[in-house]
């Protein structure tokens, strides 16, 4: 007799000789939606005398796959009062040998996720209780005191590295490792009191084994970071979880740098920095976060990290011009610069002048220019007296043949001018506007456009106004010339805007310069005319000479 309502079950049971004498008084209200596929082969010889008073209120959603082989000899006397609210995913493989004499009074309110390999002594009841399925949010099977042990064991297991280049090998093991890593990530995120001292070296060892490796050489020498697709890391499914785990480990509330610093030392950091050369941008992103957290937490490593980053950059600029992680390192540096204490230390100023400014000379500047510009502007916001060396440095390294770079430089310069102090502006205005005047008359229209757009910036305009007597003479000649000669009509229109602004700023000076310019041009025209006339005269003279009858050219 089945008192279940709404129970969809595909049940294949072969019952042989089941003799059931049951006297049951049951009031069961079970609303169970179970999709169970049970293949049970039961040979039951049951002599059941059941007196059951069951009041079950179960709301269950079960998806179970049970393969049961039951040999039951049951004598059951059950009194069960169960209230189970469960949502479970059980994969049970039960081989039950039941010799049951059960008197069960169970009031269970269970919320558990069981991945159980259960050897169950099952009570076979004619009145089957709903299969309880429970979702477990806490690792159920392992009791709390044993968890750290398990944690260490799993860490050790994850030290094995698999070869992902061979896509077909060890699929099961790879999957197992992946799920273990997932478990570790979850564990670290939610657990309390799990970090023992022994855990630290194991964690560091596991992470080291997984991520520290020799990076594969880049596929082609001509790898253009902007154009080509980067070669992605094959073992990313595992690597990502390792990074994820490590970051949560570092960010965990229980993390203690004083213990960790024995294991996360300079050697570790050095290897970490080498990994920044990876071609996989996802890996670099994780590395950036890792290094950022390490820099934040390990005060003793900060100087070392900064020195190593210096070395990397210097090598990049002066030796190899190849390193994929410049943008990420600059991002970290940006957050460091932002936190500098005032007054700035000499070491930092050196860094700015000797490393950050020469970084502008590299060919692949476009990959990290945004971050570099941010760093520079941060420096200037911290210490405005650095403006002069910075701008002079930029002017010294101003690109001469690469127009794309020139546009970037102009953008960066505008950012700098946005935060510049008026006193500093006065110091560098002359060389600066000489360069701008050259940019404005550049035949590359994007360069000219970008330079002219400065006049749309209100703050820059106010600075120019204050110093118009110095700036206007520098800019005037090229502006006036390109208003007549530039090939691009849009540029000519922008030049009008600029000239108009100047005109309204300082009419007297403007008129003077116009007059001088015009008279200069007149003089030039006159000179040219004279030159032409001279040549013509010479020609005539030569012709006259040539026309002499004897054909001899007199000396």
């Amino acid at each position, binding site marked *: 007799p089945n008192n279940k309502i709404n129970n969809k079950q595909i049940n294949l049971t072969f019952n042989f000789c089941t003799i059931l004498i049951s006297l049951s008084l049951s009031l069961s209200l079970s609303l169970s939606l179970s999709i169970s596929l049970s293949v049970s082969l039961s040979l039951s010889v049951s002599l059941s005398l059941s007196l059951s008073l069951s009041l079950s209120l179960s709301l269950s959603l079960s998806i179970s796959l049970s393969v049961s082989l039951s040999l039951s000899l049951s004598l059951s006397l059950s009194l069960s009062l169960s209230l189970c609210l469960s949502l479970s995913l059980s994969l049970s493989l039960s081989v039950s040998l039941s010799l049951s004499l059960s008197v069960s009074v169970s009031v269970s309110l269970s919320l558990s996720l069981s991945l159980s390999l259960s050897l169950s002594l099952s009570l076979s009841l004619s009145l089957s209780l709903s299969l309880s399925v429970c979702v477990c949010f806490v690792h159920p099977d392992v009791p709390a005191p044993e968890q750290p042990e398990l944690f260490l064991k799993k860490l050790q297991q994850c030290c094995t590295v698999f070869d992902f280049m061979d896509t077909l090998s060890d699929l099961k093991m790879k999957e197992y490792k992946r799920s273990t890593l997932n478990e570790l990530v979850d564990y670290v995120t939610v657990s309390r009191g799990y970090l023992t001292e022994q855990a630290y070296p194991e964690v560091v060892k596991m992470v080291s084994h997984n991520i520290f490796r020799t990076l594969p050489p880049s596929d082609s020498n001509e790898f253009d970071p902007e154009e080509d697709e980067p070669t992605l890391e094959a073992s990313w499914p595992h690597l990502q979880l390792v990074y994820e785990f490590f970051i949560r480990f570092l960010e965990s509330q229980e993390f203690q740098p*004083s213990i960790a610093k024995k294991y996360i030392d300079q050697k570790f950091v050095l290897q970490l920095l080498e990994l920044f050369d990876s071609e996989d941008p996802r890996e670099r992103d994780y590395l950036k976060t890792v290094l950022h957290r390490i820099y934040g937490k390990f005060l003793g490593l900060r100087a070392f990290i900064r020195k190593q980053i210096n070395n990397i950059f210097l090598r990049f600029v002066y030796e190899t011009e190849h390193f994929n992680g410049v943008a990420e390192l600059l991002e970290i540096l940006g957050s460091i610069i932002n936190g500098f204490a005032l007054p700035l230390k000499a070491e930092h100023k050196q860094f700015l002048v000797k490393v950050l400014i020469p970084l502008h000379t590299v060919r692949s500047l476009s990959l990290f220019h945004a971050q570099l510009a941010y760093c520079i502007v941060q420096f200037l916001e911290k210490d405005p007296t650095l403006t002069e060396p910075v701008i002079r440095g930029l002017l010294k390294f101003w690109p001469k043949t690469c127009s794309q770079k020139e546009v970037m430089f102009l*953008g960066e310069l505008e950012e700098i001018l946005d935060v510049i102090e008026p006193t500093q502006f006065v110091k560098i205005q002359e060389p600066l506007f000489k360069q701008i005047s050259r940019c404005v008359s550049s035949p590359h229209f994007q360069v000219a456009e970008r330079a002219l757009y400065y006049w749309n910036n209100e703050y820059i305009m106010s600075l120019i106004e204050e110093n118009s007597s110095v700036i206007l003479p520098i800019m005037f000649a090229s502006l006036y010339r390109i208003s007549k000669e530039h090939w691009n009509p849009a540029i000519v229109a922008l030049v009008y805007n600029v000239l108009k602004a100047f005109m309204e700023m300082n009419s007297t000076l403007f008129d003077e310069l116009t007059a001088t310019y015009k008279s200069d041009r007149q003089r030039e025209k006159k000179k040219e005319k004279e030159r032409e006339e001279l040549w013509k005269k010479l020609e005539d003279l030569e012709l006259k000479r040539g026309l002499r009858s004897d054909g001899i050219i007199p000396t």
Partner: protein
Amino acid sequence: MDAYKLMKELRVNYEQEAHYRPKETGLRLIESTTEGDSRISAKGRNAKVEDLWSLTSFFGYSTQTFVLAVNLLDRFLAMIKVQPKHLSCVSVSCLHMAAKVTEEECDLSPADELIRIGQCRFTTSDLCRMEKIVGEKLGFKSNAVTALTFLHLYHQIALSHSTDRKESLSLEKLEAQLKACLCRISFSKAKPSVLALSLLRQEMEAVQSEDMLEIAYHIQRHLKITDGELLLWSERVAPCLSDYASPECSKPNHRKLQWIVSRRTAQNLHSYRTVPELPTIPEGCWDESESEDLCEDVMSSGEESLSSSLGSDAEGPFFPLHLRRQKHLHA
């Protein structure tokens, strides 16, 4: 040209100037209009004339073109009620007409270029029509007698009288000053000859040349210009010129100019202003230790307070000692 001929020409022009003067009543009406009316105000007219000057200068037209254009504009405005929205069209058509008369064919910029650069809202056909209207209303003949005509004549006279003082009176400067005056509608009410003479006198006074002033007086008597009239306009011209010559800059913003940039440039304009994702790591006052064992003693208390200020980072019994050692290291 000898002095006698010059004087004669002066006389002729003086007699003709009345034909080319804008109606005073019309000018007064414009001056008295307040902003925001359906009529053109003095401020609007002045702003437009300044725009005209920008265009003149940009296209390399001569001052003659400019003066002629302003003359046409004033005459037209004084005669006909123009709505403010048409003012732009009227002024540019005056400029174009003046340019056609004064400039050489090769230097003339086409109308559509004028419209594009001046960021005007009307079309070339509008411009042509407006030119026709202005030409009809003013009975436009090739040349007008303007203040510039007189200025040139005065300058030549002054030159012819004192040959060794060629450099002292700069025609360019006088022209520029005239341009500055024309930007204010009040000076359009003056007789061109008187205006030019007052400018001349101002310049001569600035140069402090008695001979020059005598020449000016001579001219005044020749043209029978009254002292009162001359004085009146001199007094008005003086502040205008001192404004013009002052090193103070006026903020240029009575009209927002359009800045059109190409798509690529516009895309990259503000790419640097991205908010950084990583949180700031503040620098401690003493985390620059060269040796790690130094840290070990004092670090234990400082671990948790990474984001706190300098003071709390240095807790611990070794604080003074540590600092002393630190200073020594950095010394």
